[in-house]
């Protein structure tokens, strides 16, 4: 692999701190064993399928419907999270009110709460007889919209935690400047603040989206899991595995992995540009 070239330390080492060889060796072994080789296995397996067969199983009608739900639902959830995540970050950074710290602590709950627990709880709430489902004029649980509800839950902290520090760093200087130039509050928000935090918001959106695309535990309970209708891509992988259809599972997993790598690349791109813009390039 390309890692071989990376492993060679600079001939003239800059750090006298000991342990480079040992820790680098362990890192490479552990990373390869636990992450790289297993992921490579997926690609190798699907390469063995041949292109035609890969397209047949990986891009079948049912798979395409599942991708559409996974990606479409994630887009919708990330969009909702961008709006409310920004609102929560704004309130946390800018206002002082009783319970602010408690509120901040609870934002991280989706990171800490096991997804299966979130899944059954959301299902109970949004079922037709549930606390919220009862009040809504349309059904949520066991429908595609249920998928979005679960994805909103797990994605919220990504937006809040990405936007929060940028908003805090922004300070009030540029807003004051805008105010002295006669800009109204809303104009200042749209023309001054939003452009400043846009990269962070975009990163938060992308992180929430990426997380939602791969999400399984919190979604499957509420989704209903009807093929072609409310079946997400990760569930389709599991279903096919349970039917010992390894080829189908591998092909879909490959598509999902490719999508993850693409998103990772895009996120790094946004963050790299943002760092350069702020002149923090190392």
């Amino acid at each position, binding site marked *: 692999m390309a890692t071989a070239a990376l492993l060679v330390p600079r001939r003239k080492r800059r750090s006298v701190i000991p342990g480079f060889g040992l820790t680098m060796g362990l890192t490479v072994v552990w990373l390869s064993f636990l992450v790289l080789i297993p992921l490579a296995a*997926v690609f190798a397996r699907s390469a063995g399928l041949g292109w035609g067969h890969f397209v047949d199983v990986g891009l079948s009608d049912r798979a395409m419907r599942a991708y559409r739900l996974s990606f479409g639902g994630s887009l919708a959830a990330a969009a909702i999270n961008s709006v409310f995540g920004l609102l929560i970050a704004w309130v946390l950074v800018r206002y002082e009110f009783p319970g602010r710290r408690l509120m901040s602590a609870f934002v991280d709950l989706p990171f800490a709460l096991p997804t299966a627990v979130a899944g*059954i709880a959301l299902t109970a709430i949004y079922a037709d007889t549930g606390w919220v489902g009862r009040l809504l004029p349309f059904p949520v649980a066991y429908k595609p919209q249920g998928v979005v509800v679960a994805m909103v839950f797990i994605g919220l902290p990504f937006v809040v935690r990405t936007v929060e520090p940028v908003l805090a760093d922004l300070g009030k200087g540029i807003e004051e400047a805008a105010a002295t130039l006669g800009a109204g509050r809303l104009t200042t928000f749209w023309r001054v603040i939003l452009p400043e935090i846009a990269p962070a918001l975009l990163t938060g959106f992308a992180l929430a989206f990426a997380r939602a695309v791969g999400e399984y535990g919190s979604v499957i309970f509420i989704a209903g899991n009807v093929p072609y209708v409310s079946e997400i891509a990760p569930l389709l992988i599991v279903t096919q595995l349970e039917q010992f259809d390894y080829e189908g599972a591998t092909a879909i997993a490959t598509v999902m992995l490719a999508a993850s790598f693409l998103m990772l690349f895009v996120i790094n791109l946004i963050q790299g540009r943002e760092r350069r813009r702020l002149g923090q390039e190392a």
Partner: protein
Amino acid sequence: MSRAQHTARAAVGEPGAVRLVLILLALGWLALVILLPLFAVFAQAFARGWSTYRDTIAQPDTLAAIRLTLIVAAIAVPVNTVFGIVMAWTIAKHDFRGKDFFVSLIDLPFSVSPVVAGLCFVLLFGRNGWFGSWLSAHDIQVVFAVPGIVLATLFVTFPFVARELIPLMTAQGRDEEEAALTLGANGWQTFWHVTLPNIRWGLLYGMLLTNARAMGEFGAVSVISGHIRGQTNTMPLQVEVLYNEYNFTGAFAVASLLAGLALVTLVVKTALEWRHREQLAGAGH
């Protein structure tokens, strides 16, 4: 200074009413999206009273699931802690080419769907997998057994400690380590007496997040466990099993234990953030 800030704040801040509406909107959304599900877990778990709750938890299958979850965490947390420190030491205290790429590789498990993570190990160690025939010839079972569950958990919790430590150790620089070396300390002494005390809170923070994920992982473990009752079900899997059997009280009872764990995690995490903010790399995910 502080007075000046105060007036400035008032001069460009939102009107009080707008402020109030925004705060209420944020609180309302948080209550709906986050607090309500949390509350629902406990409400459902205790819907039939305390004694039913206790009896459900005391079921042998549930106890076995609790035991397995503890075992898996007891392996995954120390292993990933040690390797997290090792990786952070390589990256933060040395210079080499391709460092950024290396860091992205370490972060990789975060961007892989847990289901795909589980599948990876099935493809490697399953009956038709690369090592499948070798393993079955030696009568070693990985898939549908505890080793597979441990591997999948190690995969999904892989980056937490390193990701917390790398920015922290990079920010702390190398001065203290270099000072220790000029004073005659060897590498191990430098790490043990100088680096470790400086990163201890960040390390604890990373371990806490590792533990929360290790105990709560569902997708990756679900794919590889085979759902054998009393044997390969962890607590989150037991939640699913009970739920699918329409034993909702049972499912929510086990879920409430996991939710309790999440609350403890949040409390410790918040306490660490308040008391040792300068020694953390910032709220991690």
